[in-house]
């Protein structure tokens, strides 16, 4: 088993087994702008304790069951990706079948951070000016966040920064209630926050690097916290790793020091018509990046909406469990005369394994409709094959 990251001939990271130290050293570039901003906030903000005393936190909390999409960040952006993992969980808890949030616009951290910082605000394309000086530290308080599959993606470009009308229309549904809050780093505080339904962003710091992960659960019997990284599902245990309680209390795990921790407060989103898709590829060599997915409405003159892959060509993950908003022209509910269509094409670009479509479901609130083509179980597809699935 390799202990190091390396490029294989097809430019896919060969990650069999790596430790966090090596991973962050090799592929994570700290985002100075964000960390400087977080440092500034940290220095001017007192860490808060959980406001409501949890008299008897359960012995185990696992918020990972609300997290379906394991992101792969590739280069920098760990703070944004870990935050979206936290936000996805909170959305799914409050509103099942919430679409996965997107960093495509890179609003939080990169794309227009220069304007946000230097000009004190930014205009969204609907004409609103989002001012940094009116109590909104983050654009996600006023503009909100877009979802996966809405903005155009280019495989080689991480944050396109393209504003679309659809993105503007949906972003308001995914907003933060108030500024991101720093919390005390201690095992008991983490337990209390997790028991209260708050996943936690935790910064981890090495000699000359920093990284952010999302703590999503604990087990009081094993005395461990579970966190999700943003290096896909071939990292750690299907994308997850663990810290012990004592490591959190000591703020140190091996060579890694623990820095600040953060929670968010979100305005509960409202249900939107959404599709959930689960594709798996073989453990041995399978790549979700082979899979191309389009959603459309049967008979619609509008172009099929490309929903996958996202930008990251180096994503080595094998499974995709993904929730996206239905095409805006689709009128709920699906029916024989109003079919939702999923086009799946395996490009075979990264491996010849093919894979399996395990789920294709449409939901609007609690009203869930499943793909009739999967009624007898998952459907396999081969490399270079195109298949079409319908709801109902």
């Amino acid at each position: 088993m390799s202990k190091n990251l390396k490029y294989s001939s097809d430019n896919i990271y060969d990650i069999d087994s790596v430790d966090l130290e090596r991973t962050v050293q090799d592929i994570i570039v700290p985002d100075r702008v964000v960390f400087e901003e977080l440092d500034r906030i940290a220095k001017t903000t007192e860490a808060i304790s959980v406001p409501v005393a949890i008299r008897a936190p359960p012995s185990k909390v696992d918020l990972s069951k609300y997290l379906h999409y394991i992101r792969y960040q590739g280069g920098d952006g760990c703070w944004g990706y870990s935050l979206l993992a936290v936000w996805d969980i909170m959305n799914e808890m409050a509103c099942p079948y919430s679409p996965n949030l997107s960093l495509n616009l890179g609003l939080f951290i990169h794309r227009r951070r220069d304007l946000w910082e230097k000009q004190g605000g930014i205009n969204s394309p609907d004409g609103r000016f989002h001012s940094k000086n009116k109590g909104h530290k983050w654009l996600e308080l006023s503009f909100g966040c877009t979802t996966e599959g809405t903005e155009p993606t280019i495989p080689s470009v991480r944050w396109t920064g393209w504003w679309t009308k659809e993105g503007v229309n949906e972003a308001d549904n995914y907003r933060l209630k108030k500024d991101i809050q720093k919390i005390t780093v201690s095992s008991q505080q983490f337990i209390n926050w997790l028991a209260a339904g708050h996943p936690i962003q935790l910064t981890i710091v090495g000699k000359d690097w920093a990284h952010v992960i999302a703590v999503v659960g604990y087990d009081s019997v094993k005395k461990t916290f579970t966190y999700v990284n943003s290096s896909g599902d071939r990292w750690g245990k299907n994308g997850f790793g663990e810290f012990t309680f004592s490591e959190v209390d000591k703020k140190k795990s091996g060579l890694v020091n623990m820095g600040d921790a953060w929670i968010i407060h979100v305005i509960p989103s409202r249900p939107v018509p959404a599709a959930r898709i689960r594709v798996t590829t073989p453990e041995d060599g399978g790549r979700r990046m082979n899979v191309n997915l389009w959603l459309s409405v049967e008979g619609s003159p509008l172009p099929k909406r490309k929903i996958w892959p996202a930008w990251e060509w180096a994503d080595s993950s094998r499974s995709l469990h993904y929730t996206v908003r239905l095409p805006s022209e689709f009128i709920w509910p699906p029916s024989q005369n109003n079919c939702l269509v999923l086009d799946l094409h395996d490009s075979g670009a990264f491996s010849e394994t093919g894979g399996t479509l395990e789920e294709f479901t449409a939901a609007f609130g609690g009203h869930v409709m499943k793909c009739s083509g999967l009624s007898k179980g998952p459907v396999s597809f081969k490399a270079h094959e195109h298949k079409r699935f319908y709801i109902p």
Partner: protein
Amino acid sequence: MAKLQAFWVHGVSAQIEREGYFISKRRFGFGAMFNTHGAEWFHFDVPTPVILDGQRSSLNKIFVLYRTEGTAKITAIHVYDASKKIKAYDNLSLSGDHSKVIDKYNSWVITPPPQMIFGLGISVHVDFGKATTGSVPGIMFVTAGADFTTP
């Protein structure tokens, strides 16, 4: 004897307060259908004859004809003259099919009748309820209108 005037709009003129993909909108020849969860305001702008035959008119009665589906119910009706709220009916719980004939669940007498200065707005607050497994709650607006009188 007071002269009675009536002005109506079709249900497809209903405006949702907030736009977004959280609400499904369909507009038919027979009305406008909205399906979603949670609460939402809808607004009708009714043509308003503020002066008729040289006399200022007063608002006597308003009408909103509708049909609900699932857990949806109307919980409030607010009546505006431009930006001024002139009447509020709160704590309502109206559901069912009231889309075909005028009844006590889709018409409200305004007492005393206020003189209209600008334009009439009728705002309807709908609580669609929580997400349910069977279907998505909805409301169809068929038409809305008002009776005005002049001395």
